[in-house]
């Protein structure tokens, strides 16, 4: 003990034996470090940097609005401000898309680390979802710009937005846990998921409204979790109403089911990960 103190020079406040966090706090610090790592990496060496998080949804919205504006307005005039309708749906959906895609690969990518250090494995998929939420927070700037431009008023209902995002994040955590575990054993899950996501994009009323769908499709939408999350967000931001009971229930139940399945599968198989990565 003494010798290492001497070697390190002056005496220090925290002794070398008390350098560690208790396990809970440790995970929080790891999550923070990993999220900040991803964030730094995403925008390193790009001139506009973080501005891309704002520009990306805006450009996407411009393109889609230009293409679908006329078509949608004649079909369903009750849609409200169409560009805002678009950007709210797109950003929420891409949060889910990014979070699950990155989360799915997170265990495979952390292979070399997991083989060496005992870390709670769930931090990797969870971290990717948190990173997705951070990115979403930046796209809120884009949403605010659109609302400002079209003079859509912001109401107290907007205070419910964090609730929607939190539920969506929980939903994504469950999905990511499941997908990351599954992809460790079967890499085809990664390819399969990209097909699922594409199908899901079209199955979700991102640029159209449910009113143009046939009846059986509308009934099916009730089983589409993303439909509920996006409706929740549009209710509070665009239409300025309280989300309906069905919507809230849809969000909560989807999150609960996803988390339950995700944690169950992850817990059950996480001990075997190391043999397959």
């Amino acid at each position, binding site marked *: *003990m*003494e*010798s*290492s103190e001497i*070697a*390190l*020079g002056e005496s*220090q*406040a*925290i*002794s*070398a*034996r*008390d*350098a*560690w*966090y208790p*396990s809970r706090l*440790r995970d929080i*610090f*790891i999550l*923070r*470090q*990993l999220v900040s*790592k991803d964030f*730094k*990496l995403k925008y*390193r060496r790009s001139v506009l940097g973080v501005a891309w998080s704002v520009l990306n949804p805006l450009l996407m919205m411009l393109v889609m609005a230009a293409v679908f504006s006329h078509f949608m307005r004649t079909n369903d005039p009750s849609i409200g401000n169409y560009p805002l309708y678009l950007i709210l749906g797109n950003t929420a959906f891409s949060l889910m898309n990014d979070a699950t895609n990155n989360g799915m690969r997170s265990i495979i990518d952390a292979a*070399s*680390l*997991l*083989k*060496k*250090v*005992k*870390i709670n494995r769930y931090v990797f998929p969870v971290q990717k979802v948190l990173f997705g939420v951070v990115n979403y927070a930046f796209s809120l700037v884009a949403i605010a710009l659109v609302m400002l431009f079209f003079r859509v008023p912001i109401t107290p209902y907007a205070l419910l937005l964090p609730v929607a995002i939190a539920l969506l994040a929980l939903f994504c955590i469950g999905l990511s846990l499941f997908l990351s575990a599954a992809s460790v054993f*079967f*890499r*085809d*899950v990664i390819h399969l998921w990209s097909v699922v996501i594409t199908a899901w994009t079209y199955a979700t009323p991102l640029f159209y409204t449910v009113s143009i769908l046939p009846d059986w499709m509308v009934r099916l939408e009730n089983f589409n979790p993303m439909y509920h999350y996006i409706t929740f967000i549009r209710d509070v931001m665009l239409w300025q109403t309280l989300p309906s009971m069905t919507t809230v229930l849809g969000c909560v139940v989807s999150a609960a089911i996803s988390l339950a399945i995700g944690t169950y599968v992850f817990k059950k198989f996480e*001990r075997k990960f*190391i*043999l397959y990565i």
Partner: protein
Amino acid sequence: MALEEQSAPNPWGAYLDVNCKRCRLGDSVRMTPVLFHTDGAGFRYNYVWINGGWSNGNWETTLAKTGSYTTDTSYEFTPPHPGTYDLCVDIFPPDGVQFTVQRRLVVYEDLLSGKIDRTGIEDEEPVISVRDVSMIFNIASERYGSLKEYFIALMRNELTFKEFRALDGISFDVRRGEAFGLVGTNGSGKSTMLKIIAGVLDASEGVCDVKGTIAPLIELGAGFDLELTARENIYLNGSLLGYRKEFIDERFDDIVAFAELENFLDMPLKNYSSGMVARIAFAIATITEPDILIVDETLSVGDFLFQRKCERRIQELIASNNVTVLLVSHSIDLVERICDRVCWIEKGEQRMLGDALEVCEAYKALQ
């Protein structure tokens, strides 16, 4: 202890006691033969030390020096060079046959802490306790990388596995403050054992009980990100090892100084050589006093100056008698120099467990 090395006959259960097993150049070494069931009257001795073999010319015997056997019951000398010493005492009982007891000694050029006092280490509690650990891998005779192949095989009932025992009935204890080595040829199961101790792999059979904090050296590509700067990587790595942020803040300069990175702190890691990354890894892992420090091959990428520095730091940690060092290396000299005890694993089986010098000697004989 090297109790088994005497030549027969040894009617007095004699062994050679040396005041240190490892020491620094300049320290004096005292050899004392210990005899039981006799008061030692009439015994005469010839004390011998040999540094690196007779042919080397570095040896001394009291017989050659004084021309006769001595009655002194102990003998002190100062090793003139660093290296490995064979210490022998020829014992001449008054009415019996001559016999010899011997020990090995390692003398270091520089060892900050001087003589490492290892007395009492046998009484320390074990921090790593490996009991009859076996690791069985099910190797699929075919590899199913895709769902389709898997289900086809499942349907046809063709899912067959070959059992492969990577480790078979390994048992050892490592005590607090001990330096323990694992040796073995490639693919013998050292890494698997290390993974089980590190807690990332669960043993198929047996129990591996580890008490306390573990600090492994994280290699390039694991806890490091090449795009991030050294500064960012130090925090990232520290967090993965579970360090407190305040602790990293406080010791940041020490880490940088030890890794000799002062001028490159804000450079992305991809511009670093692998040796430099190994330095950071070592500096981060050893800035604390973990209960268990796991040192593996990663160390070998550093240059010789840094390797020496690392070795010194490991010696320091060992000398603190709080840190248990687990060393896995192909450099048998390093294992011999650093470790107290060594476990030799060969093809998954425990070939030998015991004093570092003995096991290393036997291991070297394999080649």
